């Protein structure tokens, strides 16, 4: 099987800091691929390179076998790659609905929408409310609240809901449950499985090993800016995975081919 | 009956206009006229002047005294005021066309420039052919006083001015360059330094007014050339005349803003009382309040007064 999204020999340096060091990457169709690694290992840098948010210094990226060069996250989105960044990428002063539909607003039908290009606020608010309810984010009292007035977890929930609602080819989630409560985390995990069931592959970065081992089909272990190995969660224990990523155990050579 | 009048000056950051205002206020108090005064933010700010004219109309004033920042741009508003039954008198700067105002009390700025130009030429004698002249003007927007004084000076000195409606298009090699001063000491010094860097042997400096002359002098002093350069200027303010006396400025053309203002207030009073409008100076289309050359080294063929007499007549 061909990988749907893959990368070869990506490099990215920030001044004296090396974030990506000849990093390879492969995402297979229909799978949930977890990316794990220490803080600062370069996981976020990797997915930023994949989603067009940064330009790697060198290396190639392929989507469905085609070499691509996203010059901005918009290109990636247009190609169907939807991302929740670790920083969430929301406009703090705008409302929840505005943020969810940023860049793909719904216009009113008929004259008002076509000629006067008026937004269909009721529709956008209704959909936003639905998506949030699906995630169980029910302490949000006012859908027109500015995002900056949300709690940390509520904000993250909004970002995840946005990606899940719109991703068509690949969904990338950078620590989507970090600030979420038990209930909301569970919903996100359920949602991830739902999305995969729709046939859309997912990249999940997480530090939460139980979550990773629960949902992932394969685990990409990232260490010091490169892919150390790819393991199957059925073949290894959480303890092994942590040992690989912290360098306590050396990586299984054969796993690279997986 | 209660007569109220407005005085609108270009910008009251310039002592010239402040003295004009004081003159007008003194005269108004004497005649029992209520005077309100307005000014633009900077020289050239005619929008604020338009707003001021409108305010005067709303306020029910009998007449307006105005020194226009843009002599043509203001005309429509002036017309509006005249239509509303006010008498409008231009002070210091004639409007374009001059009959846009009911009367004009002004200095002949071209003549003021011409006087210092002639004096400088006479003073230098044969050397005038080798003069190296620095021209310190007001602003790149070239308001009309700026142009009139500059071109008057060059005409008086005997230099072809090309288009008399703008400065800077002359080709005479004796002109080292034009620079702008904003009419203050700081600008005067900087402009002088710039031109000195271009040619350190400058020996004649025209300045738009006396503060910029003082600044130019500081620049010359800092390189020890203050004694072999002649500075000429226009205005005749008291510090300027004192600078003539001290030898900082060679000669300056003195104008009489207090008189303009006093005459203006009298005219409005007269008009309110009897409906009479003032008559212009015979042979000119405005009432010339006169200009005199002040210098302590008079030159042949140019009429002048000395600094002592200048001090008696000076305005601030």
């Amino acid at each position, binding site marked *: 099987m061909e990988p749907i999204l893959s990368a070869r020999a990506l490099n990215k340096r920030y001044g004296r800091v090396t974030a990506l060091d000849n990093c390879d990457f492969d995402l297979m169709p229909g799978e949930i691929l977890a990316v794990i690694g220490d803080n600062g290992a370069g996981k976020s840098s990797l997915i930023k390179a994949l989603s067009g948010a940064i330009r790697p210094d060198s290396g190639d990226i392929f989507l469905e076998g085609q070499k691509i060069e996203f010059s901005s996250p918009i290109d990636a989105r247009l190609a169907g790659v939807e991302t929740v960044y670790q920083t969430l990428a929301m*406009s703090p002063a*705008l409302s929840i609905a505005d943020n969810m539909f940023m860049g793909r607003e719904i216009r009113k039908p008929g004259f008002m929408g076509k000629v006067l290009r008026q937004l269909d606020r009721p529709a956008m608010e209704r959909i936003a409310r639905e998506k949030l309810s699906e995630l169980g984010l029910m302490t949000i009292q006012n859908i027109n609240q500015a995002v900056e007035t949300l709690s940390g977890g509520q904000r993250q929930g909004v970002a995840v809901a946005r990606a899940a609602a719109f991703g068509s080819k690949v969904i990338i989630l950078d620590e989507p449950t970090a600030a979420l409560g038990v209930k909301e985390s569970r919903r996100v995990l359920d949602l991830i499985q739902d999305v995969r069931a729709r046939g859309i592959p997912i990249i999940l970065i997480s530090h939460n090993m139980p979550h990773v081992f629960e949902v992932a089909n394969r685990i990409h272990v990232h260490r010091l800016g490169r892919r150390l190995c790819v393991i199957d969660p059925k073949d290894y224990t959480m303890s092994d995975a942590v040992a690989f990523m912290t360098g306590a155990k050396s990586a299984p050579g054969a796993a690279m081919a997986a | 009956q209660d007569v109220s009048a407005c005085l609108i000056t270009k910008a009251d950051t310039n002592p010239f206009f402040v003295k004009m205002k004081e003159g007008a206020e003194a005269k108004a108090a004497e005649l029992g006229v209520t005077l309100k005064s*307005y000014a633009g933010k900077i020289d050239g700010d005619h929008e604020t002047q338009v707003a001021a004219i409108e305010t005067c109309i709303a306020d029910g004033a009998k007449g307006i005294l105005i020194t226009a920042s843009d002599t043509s741009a203001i005309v429509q508003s002036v017309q509006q005021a005249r239509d509303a039954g006010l008498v409008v008198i231009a002070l210091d700067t004639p409007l374009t066309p001059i009959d846009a105002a009911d009367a004009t009390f002004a200095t002949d700025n071209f003549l003021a420039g011409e006087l210092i130009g002639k004096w400088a030429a006479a003073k230098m004698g044969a050397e005038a052919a080798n003069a190296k002249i620095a021209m310190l003007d007001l602003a790149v927007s070239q308001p009309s006083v700026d142009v009139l004084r500059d071109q008057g000076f060059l005409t008086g000195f005997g230099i072809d001015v090309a288009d008399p409606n703008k400065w800077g298009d002359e080709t005479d090699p004796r002109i080292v360059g034009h620079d702008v001063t904003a009419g203050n000491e700081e600008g005067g010094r900087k402009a002088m330094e710039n031109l000195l860097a271009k040619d350190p042997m400058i020996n004649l400096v025209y300045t738009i007014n006396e503060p910029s002359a003082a600044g130019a002098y500081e620049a010359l002093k800092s390189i020890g050339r203050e004694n072999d350069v002649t500075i000429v200027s226009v205005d005749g303010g008291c510090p300027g005349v004192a600078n003539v006396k001290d030898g900082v400025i060679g000669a300056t053309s003195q104008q009489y803003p207090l008189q303009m203002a006093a005459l203006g207030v009298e005219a409005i009073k007269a008009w309110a009382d009897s409906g009479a409008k003032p008559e212009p100076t015979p042979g000119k289309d405005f009432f010339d309040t006169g200009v005199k050359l002040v210098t302590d080294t008079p030159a042949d063929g140019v009429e002048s007064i000395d600094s002592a007499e200048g001090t008696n007549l000076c305005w601030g």
Partner: protein
Amino acid sequence: MSNPSEAEQGLTRRSESIASFDHQMTLLSRVQHALHSNPALVPLIVLVFSVIVFGALLGTKFFSSFAMTLILQQVAIVGIVGAAQSLVILTAGIDLSVGAIMVLSSVIMGQFTFRLGMPPAVAIACGLVVGTFIGFVNGWLIARVKLPPFIVTLGIWQIALATNFLYSGNETIRAQEIETQAPLLQFFGKSFTLGGAVFTYGVIFFIVLVLVLAYVLRHTAWGRHVYAVGDDPDAAALSGVNTKRILISVYMLSGLICAFAGWVLIGRIGSVSPTSGQSANIESITAVVIGGISLFGGRGSIMGMFFGALIVGVFSLGLRLMGADAQWTYLLIGALIIAAVAIDQWIRKVSA
């Protein structure tokens, strides 16, 4: 496939109702809420308050329809430029070149008609195009070359102003000539009377412009994107806004509006003068900031700017009518600007 952890077993019987707190909507909380959802309300209150104070002090001199419409006429230019400035400031930029674009456009409209002999309509179109083009240069340098807006527009300000002086030869085109030969240039100076109040077309243009922009900013995707770019440009880019295109379009629109301001300016002063508009940039920024738009971008509404411009207009006319002399007027306007914003801040705090 699902393999919930120990903790999550507690979720099985969770209730599904939407959590809700008690809401007592008192009058006060209604007012507070109104103030929160309409940031422009605060400058409006300040405006009404200052009209009342000056009215009480000056009586009918101030409360005449002449004086009231005069204020509108006097703020129309600053207000139109302020509308352009608002757009730019909402993107966290600043446009120092607004005044220069305005005056250069008006000079082009005038000179193309009189020097080049173009039909006035064509000359006006040229002026509008030039204004938009200068805006495009601003936007391109800011969005593409990524230079700070302050520096770009400072540079363009100087360039446009110098071009204006060089091209016009510092010549003013007189009102009489325009009136007889190209009255279209003075179009916005025409006026009609409505119950004793005189409205110039320029004033109408100003009001319509503000309403249209308020609609666009609030109810179209483009408007929301303008806010997003000003709020956090990185976040906006990551969440799918073409920030570069938004920035360039904002500066182009700003240039176009300023060019219109140049046309309105001809109507107001009758003539075409290259020395106009020297303080339009600082005055428009003042109106914007008094109107409650944040200089850091992304917050505020254009209606606020509208009231902000009127506040300044009311203060200036009121003080002039009270006979304060020029320096005292400046001093008091300085104090009142601070006071207006302080009151605004105070109302927001009380209602927070």
